[in-house]
């Protein structure tokens, strides 16, 4: 099992990469809106992503179950 510091040191860059990919998806969407001059008819997937980040941004997760929370959250999108 990894120590707290080792956990951060091991996975920080991969998490950074993954967050950049999420940021790029949202930028890609905004650029598409600019090009087409209209938002998506159904923006629920974008809203879902933003809500997921709000869940992650909560400072305390005493049960260390963020992944479980996100899976339940994403299950609302069909």
């Amino acid at each position, binding site marked *: 099992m990894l120590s707290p510091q080792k956990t951060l040191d091991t996975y920080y*860059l*991969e998490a950074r*990469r993954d967050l*950049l*990919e999420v940021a*790029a998806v949202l*930028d*890609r969407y905004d*650029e598409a809106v600019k090009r087409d001059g209209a938002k998506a008819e159904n923006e629920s997937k974008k809203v879902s992503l933003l809500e997921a980040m709000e869940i992650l941004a909560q400072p305390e997760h005493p049960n260390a179950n963020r992944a479980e929370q996100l899976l339940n959250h994403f299950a609302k999108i069909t």
Partner: protein
Amino acid sequence: MQIIQPHYHAIARTAQDYERMAMSGVVAVCEPAFWAGFDRRHPETFIDYFAQISEFEPTRAAEFGIRHYCWVAVNPKEAENKELTTEVLRQMPEFLEKPTCLGVGETGLHKSTPNEIESLQAHVEMAMKHDQLVLIHTPHLSDKAHGTKTVLEVLAGMDVNPDKIWIDHVEEQTIEPVLDAGYWAGMTLYPVTKCSPRRAVDILEKYPRERLLVNSSADWGPSDPFTLQESIVEFRRRGHSLQAAVEIYHNNPCRFLGQNPKWDIKPITISEE
């Protein structure tokens, strides 16, 4: 589709890479001199390294029908050793004459120290004196924005031809000032620490493409030559034409590198789509 891999560290890779790249349409790779993972102590080690990438590596690539070109330089990390840098620079012109050497690179900055800046200036001066192309490395991660700004400041204080300078490893936070200053900008696609194939396509869609290069810079670390092909697939998946892909992944390298007469691969046009 014919593809050019403009930045690739072949000596750190296997022949199987060459074979698979050839099968995927890669017709040429360009190998800048880089860091070996440890700081070399002797100028002679660089000389042997330059001989390896200018004489031996082309023969290894040719086994798979791939053209191999190289660049020579002391990389920014080892530029801290001023004595070493001076001696290697003294011997570099001999290698600039090699039939497959395209220019001076990759020079640039790592931590943007005074010694690194001095080395960058010396490399660029040598390149301009010998009418060579220049490939400039910009720093990683948190050092990137500051390092890129410093590179641009150094170049702004020198008598350079921006057409002949490729500033590499740009990302979203650094591409604009590089293009605005008239230089070529390269995006390096890494699995974790640099740009990604999809983000590169976002950039290709956002900025003028005439001075953009895309590469994998595959080396001995976590890297993958096929991130380049991943970005081509992503580009095509978004509906861009085959000719548009050829312009970026084949013709732009030809246009930049073709400023050196040793590069004889010409831009191509797809006659039917």
